[in-house]
């Protein structure tokens, strides 16, 4: 199986560097101007200014053209039908471009316009070499110490192009200079001496010319070697970075897949739990009812011991029925917003209903239930059944874990865009080390178990699930032996959008 190659952002980099290259050329233009004018005044040297300024004009014109062409390298690219069929980037696939672009490891490729960008850079370096040679020719030829400026071109080639292309440019520079020097030495080309205070005349001495050529050659090739060595190293790093980011991307994808699998498993588990609870509920209810009837009708005729057994059985069946009901509520809330019908809910109505339901158990426990409902509460978008369960569980817990004579305070009010439900009791409290676990299913703290035997340990799990289902938050503060405060904040939600029309 052939793997799809990883695409390196070659074009982008080349374009960026060619831009830098063009800016450097403006510096060169300014440098030549300053050099010529200052040279005349300070040194003083007599320049052949007309050809120099002519070349300078060409250089300026050419650099303007280059800077105009630069953005076009990226744009206006047309994919030929053949390329499309083969799925290759033609700019890169061309033999010249392939030669010019730095080599990349197997499994990598450049993006499609990189070849064109490389051709563009290559053409500029060549033109620059010729322009430098021409400038040198009119400023003393082999006698001009600025011949070392060929080094700059080699450095730029090593940054932009392949190692091979860099050596080609080094050679080209050397050949141009050699042609110039030998041409002048042999009298084929005219010699333009720098006159004035500049000592001249070396261009006719063969050993001097040979030495200059040799030194320039060595300089250029060493530069090519060093420049490309550094560039290759940097490119390797670049490839590593691309590879790393690719790997990270893949890892993230794996994680996403794993997350989705876990979520699906969680949903399946929740559905299973729901189904089981649903199936258990009916028979349990019947058992409880049947035992109740047996107790009612047989209390006179049954032996006390048997009666007690039936009583126990009835109580335990009731506990089981409650627990299955709570499991159903929990799976319902955990199913997210999709598993329930979200409607506009009047919190005050729900709170009043719940308070009506639990008032009896509060009275029975000798606990005062203090309720304060904010004036003109806004409706919130939510699941009425879940919200009723939330309030029931919070207030029910308060009542259950508060000793006789204590108080459970329920406050419901608006705060900004949220509904706040605050339940405070003067009960037994929750040990600090147990606080992180109170939302775990079936968890009951030791204090709670000692204080009240019954209780499924599902209440707070349901509360938390309902809070999350509604995108809200919950916080619990508790002091052992002093009481507990649970504060739930629920966003009001976008009423107009999801209202049950």
């Amino acid at each position, binding site marked *: 199986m052939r793997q799809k190659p990883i695409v390196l952002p070659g074009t982008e980099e080349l374009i960026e560097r060619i831009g830098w290259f063009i800016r450097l050329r403006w510096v060169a233009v300014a440098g030549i101007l300053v050099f010529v004018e200052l040279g005349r005044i300070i040194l003083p040297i007599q320049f052949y200014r007309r050809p120099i300024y002519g070349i300078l004009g060409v250089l300026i014109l050419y650099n303007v053209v280059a800077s105009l062409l630069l953005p076009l390298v990226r744009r206006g690219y047309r994919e030929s039908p053949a390329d499309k069929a083969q799925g290759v980037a033609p700019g890169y696939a061309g033999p010249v471009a392939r030669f010019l672009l730095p080599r990349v490891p197997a499994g990598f490729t450049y993006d499609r316009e990189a070849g064109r960008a490389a051709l563009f850079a290559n053409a500029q370096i060549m033109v620059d070499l010729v322009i430098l040679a021409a400038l040198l020719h009119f400023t003393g030829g082999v006698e001009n110490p600025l011949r070392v400026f060929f080094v700059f071109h080699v450095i730029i080639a090593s940054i932009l192009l392949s190692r091979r292309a860099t050596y080609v440019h080094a050679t080209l520079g050397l050949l141009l200079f050699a042609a110039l020097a030998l041409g002048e030495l042999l009298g084929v080309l005219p010699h333009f001496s720098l006159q004035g205070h500049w000592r001249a005349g070396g261009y006719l001495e063969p050993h001097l010319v040979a030495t200059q050529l040799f030194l320039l050659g060595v300089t250029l090739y060493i530069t090519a070697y060093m420049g490309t060595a550094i560039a290759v190293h940097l490119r390797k790093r670049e490839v590593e970075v691309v590879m790393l980011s690719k790997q990270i991307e893949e890892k993230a994808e794996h994680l996403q897949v794993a997350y989705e699998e876990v979520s699906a498993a969680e949903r399946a588990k929740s559905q299973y739990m729901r189904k089981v609870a649903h199936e258990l509920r009916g*028979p349990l209810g*019947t058992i409880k*009812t049947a035992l*109740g009837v047996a107790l*009612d009708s047989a209390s006179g005729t049954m032996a006390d011991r048997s009666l007690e057994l039936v009583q126990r059985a009835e109580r335990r069946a*009731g506990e089981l029925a409650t627990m299955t009901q709570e499991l159903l509520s929990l799976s319902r809330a955990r199913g997210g917003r999709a598993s329930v019908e979200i*409607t506009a809910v009047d919190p005050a109505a729900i709170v009043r209903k719940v308070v009506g*339901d639990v008032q009896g158990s509060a009275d029975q426990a000798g606990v005062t239930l203090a309720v304060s409902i904010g004036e003109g509460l806004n409706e919130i978008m939510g699941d009425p*059944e879940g919200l*009723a369960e939330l309030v029931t569980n919070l207030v029910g817990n308060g009542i259950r874990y508060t000793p006789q004579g204590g108080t459970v305070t329920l406050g419901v009010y608006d705060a900004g865009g949220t509904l706040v439900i605050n339940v405070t009791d003067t009960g037994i409290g929750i040990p600090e080390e147990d606080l992180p676990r109170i939302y775990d299913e079936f968890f009951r703290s030791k204090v709670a178990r000692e204080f009240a035997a019954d209780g499924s340990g599902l209440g707070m799990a349901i509360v938390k699930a309902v809070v999350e289902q509604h995108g809200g938050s919950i916080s619990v503060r508790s002091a052992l032996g002093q009481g507990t405060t649970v504060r739930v904040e629920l966003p009001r939600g976008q009423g107009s959008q999801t209202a049950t029309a």
Partner: protein
Amino acid sequence: MAHNKILLVDDDPDLVHVLTLVLESHGYEVVAALEAKQGLEVADGERPDLIVLDVMMPEGTEGFHFVWNLRNRPDAYFQQVPIIMLTAIHQRTPLRFYPDSGDGTYQAGEYLPVQGFVDKPVEPAALVAEIERVLTSIRRS
């Protein structure tokens, strides 16, 4: 109130059996059906004074559908026979199941035309009390 005939519709035969015992011990005559279709037939034939209906039954014949099918029959009897549902649903939703006591108006879609509810699991005493409440209110009106 003796000799009132009550129809029990529930898919749990054991519960039907237990509730039959309870209601008979309170002097009611009990007929039973284990699924909705049979329930409609029995109601048609026996004309009970009150129907006790489980809210959720399998095979898509839910208690709700039973209620609407029954109420939509042309015979005036079916529009009037009181129904008590075995469910805790009225505690859990903001739906209103009884017409407002004042002018008897209610909003469409928010109303289930039944007269009473008893939570599951069924407390026999609660069921008997609810049956008596409904029958008394019917007799009074």
